[in-house]
């Protein structure tokens, strides 16, 4: 019985080539792919994920620099073109390649239906210039500028997505609305992640009466029908609230409902983790409860939190839009995709002015993109998924 016999010799297989001596220096030559690199490679291998990321990067930059990308301000009115259709961008004139331009409108009023129809007026040519000087704006409330990405000369008009009921440029409004429609879900998600993960971890770690109470509370929250609950909470926001405060209010309302699902998931994860040896080791080391919660448990739940949080954004985008569409969310002068869709409520819009649905298209694409990203993240973080 010689358990303690020295077995220091490395059992080299007879046929195995001995590694060159230089490779034996473990510190310098060993290549270990970091978690981040593996994660990145796995996301990059997912085509839909990349599409999602590209669209979201585009949307976020649009949101950040909306004033620059939009040719007009939200309130700029084209008096001569109410509910005008999108203008087509031409690059050929008289069979020759020119700078991109749009034609002006010729309007005719149908004497029977009183509807104005717009046709391209080939006499009115508005060439599109890039980096033009137009109405000044304040980027992020800090930097004053008057450079916009593109525009036409004074007196002309460019409305790539047509104009609305009051003659405002739909394209500019959709781009500007991106700010609200993306920031409400992202801020709401952050609040609900902070709430949900800390309450969930605490609930799972301590257990007992607190756990039971918290879990019943989340069940009640989750079993309410969503829209009436949002409406009720949104209705508690005083009507005399300024547009900006209302925006914050709506965000908080959405977050207060959204944390419940995450809380339950994180609690489950915590229940599983808290019995693991490294938590036991942390307690044996004398680590305080906050250390165990915030340095052991939450980091180990983190991949889970990221996925759940990402996949909760589409719900929040739709929630904000629903509230705004119903008139109890974002109010003018702020615009969100939901408030823009308010203009597209009638059947007449669908038949005669379908371009007013543009914000809806953006919403659908963004929701899809976030879902693609969430799925890609989930697959990439799942240790059991096969790397494609």
């Amino acid at each position, binding site marked *: *019985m*010689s*358990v*303690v*016999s*020295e*077995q*220091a010799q490395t*059992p080299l297989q007879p046929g195995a080539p001995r590694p060159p001596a230089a490779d034996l220096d*473990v*510190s310098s030559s*060993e290549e*270990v792919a970091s978690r981040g690199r593996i994660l990145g490679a796995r996301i990059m291998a997912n085509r839909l994920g990349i599409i999602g990321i590209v669209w979201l990067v585009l949307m976020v930059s649009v949101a950040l620099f909306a004033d620059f990308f939009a040719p007009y301000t939200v309130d700029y009115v084209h008096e001569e073109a109410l509910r005008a259709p999108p203008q087509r961008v031409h690059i050929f004139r008289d069979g020759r390649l020119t700078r991109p331009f749009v034609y002006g409108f010729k309007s005719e009023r149908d004497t029977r239906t009183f509807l104005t129809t717009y046709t391209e007026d080939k006499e009115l040519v508005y060439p599109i210039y890039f980096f033009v000087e137009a109405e000044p704006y304040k980027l992020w409330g800090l930097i004053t500028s008057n450079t916009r990405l593109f525009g036409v000369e004074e007196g002309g008009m460019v409305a790539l997505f047509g104009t609305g009921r009051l003659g405002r440029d739909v394209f500019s409004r959709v781009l500007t609305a991106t700010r609200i429609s993306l920031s409400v879900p992202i801020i709401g998600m952050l609040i609900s992640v902070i709430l949900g993960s800390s309450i969930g971890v605490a609930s799972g770690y301590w257990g007992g009466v607190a756990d039971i109470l918290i879990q019943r509370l989340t069940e009640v929250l989750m079993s309410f029908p969503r829209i009436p609950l949002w409406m009720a909470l949104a209705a508690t926001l005083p009507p005399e609230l300024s547009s900006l405060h209302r925006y914050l209010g709506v965000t908080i309302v959405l977050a207060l409902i959204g944390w419940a699902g995450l809380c339950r998931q994180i609690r489950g994860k915590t229940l599983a983790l808290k019995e*693991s*040896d*490294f938590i*036991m*080791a*942390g*307690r*044996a*080391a*004398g*680590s*305080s409860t906050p*250390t165990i919660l915030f*340095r*052991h448990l939450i*980091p*180990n739940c*983190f991949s889970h939190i990221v996925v759940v949080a990402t996949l909760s954004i589409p719900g929040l985008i739709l929630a904000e839009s629903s509230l705004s569409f119903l008139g109890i969310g974002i109010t003018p002068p702020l615009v969100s995709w939901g408030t823009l869709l308010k203009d597209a409520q009638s059947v007449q819009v669908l038949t005669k002015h379908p371009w007013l649905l543009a914000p809806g298209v953006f919403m659908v694409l963004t929701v899809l993109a976030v879902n693609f990203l969430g799925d890609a993240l989930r697959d990439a973080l799942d240790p059991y998924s096969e790397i494609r």
Partner: protein
Amino acid sequence: MSDTPILQVENLSKFFPVQRGLLRRTVGHVKAVNDVSFAVNKGECLGLVGESGCGKTTVARCLLRLVEPDQGRILLHGEQQTFDIASASRKEMLDVRRQMQIIFQDPFSSLDPRWRVTDVIAEPLMAQKVGRGEAGRRVLEILPTVGLGPHFADRFPHELSGGERQRVSIARALIVSPPLVVADEPVSALDVSVRSQIINLLLDLQSQMNLTYVFIAHDLSIVKHISHRIAVMYLGRLVELGTTQQVFEDCKHPYTKALLASVLIPDPTHREQSYVLEGEVPSPLNPPSGCHFSTRCPFAQEQCSAEEPELRDMGGGHWVRCHFAEELDLSEEIFAPQFDTPTASN
């Protein structure tokens, strides 16, 4: 090694309630540890052995207050003061953890996968409010002591082998220089080839740092090698306690004998017919009446299932929990199997 106890466990019990149904009614208790008493002397290694489920690990966790003991006292004689771990306050526990640390069984699950080796090893120091710079310096100091190079400091656990991980685990336990270390089966999750290295490391560290070990294992050959005294547990009860020599050469309890007989001897010519215990370990939820071992004991008599034996001193610090400890002659012949075993010759 001296005779001054560093740790005294008195009548330690831990019962886990078993709850059933919607209302989580308690329908019984698993008596994981039942009235266990022993002492550990300064500088010695006390081996705690027994088969799976006998309560070894629960004892270890009670010692560190990782599970709350239900009854009993755990006295730790520190340099300045004596603590009763079973009733120590949160603040006192922090002092206790500077004097007693634990090495866990599974090096794969006892290191947080998100923490670098430095942070893992420094965790007890950070808990003791040692500054970050000082902690990092001490980690670099202790790495060579456990046989790891300084480049391991920035690694993550998943980059290490089982043996390396267990070395990290040992470094974590020793970083606060505790006089007493509880080792909960520190090598049973390791490759056989690495076991001896870790055992030798533990022995070296013991002599270098004058450590006291409570060494839990189910592999008797390792315990024999490392322990000065051995405590044998069966179904939450201590059944025999004595020096290594007493237990290995003159054991008085039939269960200890059966454990010893189960040790395999790596000798191809050896043809001993070792004694095999019959039956399963009874459920700790409902242990047999009288002597817990009576259902499997080849010498069981009426008295055995009627009344429970006391842990009695047989002289020379040899304690046995058996009615017939004096009368039994536990030699190999008696331990011949009581059922037909196919012989090796055909």
